[in-house]
């Protein structure tokens, strides 16, 4: 896309200034790296502590700030090689000893299991807030979390596992991580097999597969944000189409129900994003207006986000919007023009000629209109 030729707008300069200021503010903050898994036993702790070991071998000052009460046998020898700052006891429970860690000032601190609530009387209510404090103090943190404890995924996870979880970490905290790495393994290897329980195993594997898919998609979404941040920070207007993004264009005679159905299925299958848009037009006939309103209602009922665009040339306005948002599939209805109007070329013709970088999907019209 024509990014090179575009002149910088005041907004561009403003964004650059903000990015610079943020970079200065972030300089003294510790980096956060999160290992994400979809179940216990996939090897998050091992991967995390193995990284700690490698960093130590490279001369970094690494301490362990929290480790799960029960570690798998392959993890224990890794922990033994590292300095551990014990949890601070508060009654029967315990929390990360943030003060002790800050006093010790390591370069890197390992925090296993982000989703713990701290006992009453602790510095913070939750462990992920403790991590924030460590980062503020300039200490790098490597942490692990199970997808099942992400707050916003609560409903989805409960629907899969049938279990309610109380302790959660907000998704925004995962997004704030400088790096996130998924620990992936097919379910069968994270399970002990017992031939007597085949049906149970099948069900459990299916649950785990769903959680695994969820973890992969959440990681992909976070990576997508990172990519967009990177491109924005560097003033690049390039889109890579790594995520499918579908734009449904509303026109007065579009078969909205079918377009929305297809778009929703495609968005779900591709784990993609769905946007609905229409270009506001002056001097629109009352019948067209009511047809538009009916279609808007369908989009709204489907829970879609509708963007209202303004521009003299509808096709150009849609394409501009599609390019800014990195659209990969543009859904549009068949052209209505006949006779003389066709000689000039319809907006659909224009979308097809100029819709570089995306698929133009031309839908059948409604039969009734």
């Amino acid at each position, binding site marked *: 896309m024509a990014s090179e030729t575009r002149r910088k707008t005041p907004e561009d300069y403003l964004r650059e200034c903000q990015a610079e200021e943020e970079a200065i503010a972030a300089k003294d903050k510790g980096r956060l790296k999160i290992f994400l898994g979809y179940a216990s036993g996939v090897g998050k702790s091992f991967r995390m502590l193995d990284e700690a070991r490698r960093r130590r071998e490279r001369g970094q000052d690494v301490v362990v700030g929290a480790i799960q009460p029960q570690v798998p046998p392959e993890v224990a020898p890794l922990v033994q090689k590292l300095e551990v700052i014990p949890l601070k006891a508060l009654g029967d429970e315990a929390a990360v000893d943030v003060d002790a860690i800050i006093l010790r000032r390591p370069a890197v601190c390992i925090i296993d299991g982000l989703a713990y609530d701290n006992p009453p009387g602790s510095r913070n209510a939750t462990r992920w807030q403790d991590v924030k404090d460590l980062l503020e103090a300039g200490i790098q943190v490597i942490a692990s979390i199970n997808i099942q404890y992400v707050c916003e995924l609560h409903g989805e996870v409960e629907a899969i596992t049938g279990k309610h979880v109380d302790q959660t970490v907000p998704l925004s905290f995962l997004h704030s991580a400088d790096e996130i790495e*998924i620990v*992936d393994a097919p379910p069968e290897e994270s399970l002990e097999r017992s031939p007597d329980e085949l049906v149970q195993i099948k069900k459990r594997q299916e649950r785990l*597969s769903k959680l695994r898919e969820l973890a992969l998609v959440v*990681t992909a979404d976070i990576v997508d944000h990172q990519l967009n941040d990177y491109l924005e920070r560097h003033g690049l207007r390039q889109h890579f189409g790594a995520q499918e993004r579908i734009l449904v264009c509303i026109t007065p005679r579009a078969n909205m129900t079918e377009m929305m159905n297809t778009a929703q299925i495609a968005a779900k299958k591709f784990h993609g994003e769905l946007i609905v848009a229409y270009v506001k037009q002056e001097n629109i006939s009352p019948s067209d207006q009511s047809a538009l309103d009916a279609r808007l209602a369908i989009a709204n009922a489907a829970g879609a986000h509708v963007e209202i665009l303004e521009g003299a040339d509808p096709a150009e306005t849609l394409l501009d919007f599609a390019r800014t948002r990195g659209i990969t599939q543009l859904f549009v209805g068949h052209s209505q023009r006949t006779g003389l109007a066709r000689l000039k070329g319809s907006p659909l013709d224009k979308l097809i000629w100029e819709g570089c970088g995306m698929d133009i999907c031309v839908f059948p019209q409604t039969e009734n209109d």
Partner: protein
Amino acid sequence: MTDQRRGRLKIFMGYAAGVGKTYKMLEEAQDLKASQVNVVIGYFEPHGRAETIAKTEGLEIIPRKKIQYRDSVFEEMDTEAILGRHPRVCVVDEFPHTNVPGSERSKRWEDVEILLAAGIDVLTTMNIQHLESLNDQIWQISGIRVRETVPDWVVEEADEVVMVDLTPRALLNRLQRGVVYERAKAEKALQNFFREQTLVALRELALRQAAHEVEHRMADDDTRRSTVPRKHHKVLALVTANPKTAMVIRRAKRVSDFLGAECFAATVQPTGDLTGLGSEDREAIEKHLNFARNLHIETRILEGDDVASTLVDFGRRNQVTQIFLTRPNRKMWSPALSRDPVQKIIGLAKDMLIVIVSDRERVT
């Protein structure tokens, strides 16, 4: 003789060299050996990486086969020797590799098919950029036209696809420390393929593909159990001599795979075969039809003088729901005369979804 059980295929999927695919695969081989499973290395590419080489210790390696080609001797996996040795599990690095001319089979994934057919389980590695249907997107992201590709159906048939993840930052660190390539090659790689935004985008693609593979395998289980028929999509791609046809076929296949649809590719010729064409067009169309067949797409040569009406008729008779086309050349596009087949198809097939696939562009 009893029925031969097909071996299980497990793919370790990554997004770039150096993320640790081979390491992870060998780790699993070591675990298998530790639990008394009969496992051998059929092919291993050391790339001079010490940590990875150390992971092969104690594992039996089947010697490679030497093949003379022109003035040099090349080494390839010795599939026949592995069959003779018949282990329970075989480790095969670099799944998308193309064998040197003169080899029994042209692709390593075809060698792996032989091992699987013989009932041997295979562990193998590949990067997302070698998946055929992503070829155009990979070019858009990296500027590289990947030649060694694996058809999507081969990956879909794998029993497991595991994502081997590493953050781009960690990968770039490895590269700078010379873990992945030696110094000079690393410098070059950092300027080209290993730019941060390229890596981040490839990683996102790999994660989404891995999620799709998980869902695909669950859906497989579901369809076996479920008796409710789902709305069926049928996708048809128009094959012409236009070089962009390959892109249309890839995209049509990818969309069909994600929607669980059937996919056809058809060309329209007045004679019903390719005899009426000049040699250049004929070769191009034959190449495209072969390409489609390799991706497991059913192909047809339709007889008809008019491309648009013949294609749309065929589509209607076969309950096609979507037609995939290349973008028309603007110069050819004439609103008044409707000469362009694409424009005519849009006009005729008002009951179908028409998808015009256009070039993915890139900024360098």
